[in-house]
């Protein structure tokens, strides 16, 4: 629905007149659509909220365009309707955003509980499962909700773009932030020219700061976890006949384990990969593309080449993993009837013959047959029949035609007497 709407909006910009006509035309269908609404409530109600959100952007422009056109009464009626829609939109939008706010409040409370949990209990957890992986997972968990919170906030801003920003944001913030702070922010924002935008930015900043402080408040415990995670604790390697790779060398040279990859790999993804290898090269060979490579490719494979290829194929020759792979192997060896991959299976000797050889056979009539008359007519019919016959090869078709050629040559005298052989 949204797509249609946006398309029509586009249309209105370019062909306002056309749309106008369309509107007039379609206004007649009001009745129909009312009937339809009764039917289509269920599916609509589910997606209505989404539509409302998106429509906000579209409708006003539509409306503007509509007003530009000199409108009869019907259009004004339409306009009224859209305004009503807008009003209901606003309601639903507000509801929706409230829901959203609640959602991520619950999320943030989860974060808090996560943080709170990491008291003694998590310390015990950490000590119990002393593996590098576990701790990095935990750290990620702490990071993730914060990010999603921010992204959710950003998404919300975009949805409530045009007019309701102030109200919605205020309602959202009033639960997350101190109302005094919100009031102060809006007061400060009112001094600026772009009021709503500035306010939203201010509030966003405040919210981030609040999150940060809260995170740091809980942080002392988390930091302990991180600290413990960074400490590498080796396993008991004092076992008899331990595996040589088992020997943890961290107390000998301090580098038994690689440094924690959690952060380094992230950094590596972010920043441009640092090339380990210096860009220097040997500079022995010049970068010329001779045709020598082609020559060697054209040459016949020697015994050495065959043997090398054989060696490679032996190395990669894995046993088939399932029945189909076994059938592939058999097909390659020629033991199995091959699966048809087109309609030309089994046409080995006809594979090289293009189809027009089969269909356009008139060229074979050019010599040895009269140009006109009943014989020519008969032969044309024969050729048409042959063209439609899929069961004969081209050679057989040619033989068929040449048989007639010989036949008519033999009967030439009779035909000439009857005055039908015209050549």
């Amino acid at each position, binding site marked *: 629905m949204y797509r249609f709407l946006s398309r029509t909006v586009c249309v209105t910009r370019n062909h306002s007149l056309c749309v106008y*006509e*369309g509107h007039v035309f379609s206004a007649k*269908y*009001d009745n129909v659509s009312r009937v339809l609404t009764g039917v289509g409530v269920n599916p*609509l109600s589910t997606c209505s909220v989404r539509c409302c959100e998106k429509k906000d952007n579209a409708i006003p422009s539509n409306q503007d365009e509509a007003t530009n056109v000199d409108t009869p009464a019907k259009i004004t009626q339409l306009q009224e309707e859209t305004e009503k829609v807008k009003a209901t939109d606003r309601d639903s939008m507000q509801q929706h955003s409230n829901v959203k706010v609640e959602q991520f409040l619950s999320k943030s409370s989860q974060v808090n509980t996560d943080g709170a949990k990491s008291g003694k209990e998590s310390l015990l957890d950490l000590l119990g499962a002393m593996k590098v992986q576990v701790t990095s997972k935990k750290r990620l968990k702490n990071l993730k909700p914060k990010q999603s919170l921010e992204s959710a906030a950003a998404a919300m801003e975009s949805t409530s773009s045009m007019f309701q920003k102030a109200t919605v944001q205020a309602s959202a913030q009033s639960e997350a932030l101190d109302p005094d702070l919100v009031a102060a922010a809006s007061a400060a924002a009112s001094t600026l020219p772009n009021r709503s935008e500035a306010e939203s930015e201010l509030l966003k900043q405040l919210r981030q700061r609040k999150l940060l402080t809260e995170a740091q408040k809980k942080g002392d415990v988390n930091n302990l976890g991180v600290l413990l995670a960074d400490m590498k604790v080796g396993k008991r390697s004092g076992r008899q006949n331990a595996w040589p790779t088992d020997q943890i060398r961290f107390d000998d040279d301090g580098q038994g384990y690689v440094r924690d990859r959690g952060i380094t790999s992230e950094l590596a993804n972010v920043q441009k990969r640092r090339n380990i290898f210096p860009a220097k090269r040997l500079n022995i*060979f010049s970068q010329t593309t001779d045709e020598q490579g082609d020559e060697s490719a054209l040459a016949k494979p020697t015994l050495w080449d065959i043997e090398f290829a054989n060696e490679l194929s032996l190395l990669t020759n894995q046993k088939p*993993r399932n029945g189909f792979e076994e059938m592939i192997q058999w097909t390659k060896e020629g033991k199995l009837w091959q*699966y048809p991959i087109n309609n030309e299976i089994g046409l080995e000797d006809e594979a090289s013959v293009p189809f027009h050889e089969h269909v356009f056979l008139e060229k074979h009539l050019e010599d040895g047959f009269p140009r006109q008359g009943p014989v020519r007519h008969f032969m044309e019919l024969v050729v048409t029949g042959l063209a439609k016959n899929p069961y004969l090869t081209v050679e057989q078709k040619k033989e068929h035609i040449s048989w007639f050629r010989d036949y008519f040559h033999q009967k030439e005298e009779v035909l000439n007497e009857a005055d039908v052989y015209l050549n």
Partner: protein
Amino acid sequence: MAAPCRHVGHHIQKNGRFLRVNINQLFACRSFGLTSALQQQATDLHKESKEAIVIPRKKSWNKEAVLEALASTVQRDPTAYPYQFQDDSYLSPRTSIEFKLFSLSQESGRAAAKYFVNSNPKLFTKDFAEPHIPCLMPETVALRLEEVSQEALEERISLRKVSAAVEMYDQLLQSGTAVSMETTHKLLDLICLYCDRDPVQEGTPQTEDREEEEEDRRRKPVGRQAMDFLKCTWKENNNAERIFNLLPERDARCYSALIRGMVKHGAYAKAFNLYEDLLNNRLSADVHIFNALISAVPDVRKKNNERWDLIAELLNQMNEQKVRPNLLTFNSVLKALRQCSFLAKTFSPQILNEMKALGIAPSLATYEHILTVFFYKSASSGPSNMAILQDVLMELEGTSFTCQDPNDVLFFATAMKLCLDNKDLELGYKVHSLVEVGENWRLLGDSYQQALYYGRFFNLLCLMEHIDVVLKWYSRIVPSLLYPNPQGMKNLLQALDTDSRLDLLPIIWKGPTHTARSAPPASVSINMVHFPLLSADIKSLGHDNKVDLVEELLSLMARDEHSAEVQESFAACALDVKSVFDERPKKEWSTSSLSHISILLLRANKLQKAWDMLQLFKDKNRVPS
């Protein structure tokens, strides 16, 4: 009730408006769309008359396309044995030794049948197949042409009968018939490739020592070809050299055959002498000669810098003679560099860059050489060296390879070894994900290499990963891909120990049996839900006769005291161990295992059984500690 109703009513009202608005605009859109479509059609008509018709190219499929598509839908079944053993459930291998035995016997059966068919072609004249299937009919391995002629010589060459070909060539020379240059090339190639010996024909029965050789080759797949050919060394003045010296004129192809043969069969110094000879005759060598010579460099020079100097000289000569290097050239350079210890680290990156500058895509073998160069001494492996592995893996990520070099198949096992040595789990996962890309699993090499690779991967998991994940992987790769050796099982036991999940020990011993199921301890029962069903355990893998592994198991069970339920299952497990030992009277009880079992029984309040153990002490002349 009223509230929801009102809510619905509200919705209906709201949406009704919406729908109407939408429909209005839908129609607007429609009417417009129609006209535009019409207009477009009109313009298209105009265009068509002018433009020529372009017939799309025919899409061609190969004959296995359908089967390949079908095969790609089949996932690997982690609980099943490899496909080749599924015909006969009696022949399901449980250990790696059985795997080797069964697959070899399968192969040898096929070879025997083929030999029988080929050696008795008279018995297999009926051709039932319609259309004719050539590969099912007996092959002609016997010579047909008996007269002395060049055709007869060619036939002997194509059937790879070295001595017969040499004989025929001599007869031709004696009769004064000239042999064409091309045939001479082929003859020299044949003699040099097989080092003047008749190759072992496929399917012929082998003598006793040959079979041992065969066995050796399978055991040592790494460079087994080289090992095989090193046994027959290049002899002074063999037929190849004799024929070569008799030739009225020699071109680069003749030199190429000789030099390659010499390098292949260990006459390195001779190869270099012949190369000098070639240069003196003002001929230019081909790329194969250079490849062979470069790979021979470490054997003719003893000092590292001399080796590198010789390599650089050869490369420069290549450039002077306008010979274009290929992938194998650089791979053999890198392989030679592996034996130049400290110089290698400086030059191998340069070689890689040279390859890239020349537009030669490195193969897995190239990276394998570079990795081994940088990890030559494991003591010097620091974080920077792991960064190299990381770099290489990042470059290779998501690419699918084909085998271009015989050493390609060593890459994955080497990379996983480095991950294991440096205990880098993340890179280990990366290596494994590279294996899973496309057809890369084919490059894991033969069963020995695969066992090596998966064994290392599993050990890495045991060392670094949480026990739940380890067990998940265990059920995924055992026994369909890996038969863990006793060391692998010990690592698994240690992983259990470190994560203090010793309560799972009975399951590792015997699988989830009635002991674990009937009385699941409260603490275990929760975890049992997540616990993957083990597809193989110590008993089914046939490790229950490995004394040290069993002792390790017993000592782990006896070390600490656990809750009553766990002790119960431990005692049952200990009794099971005891019964296994009783079945094999040859096995010696050690004092420690005896005392461990008695301790376990005592902790589970099985006094009578413990008393029996004490009797056992007496019987075996052991003293309880």
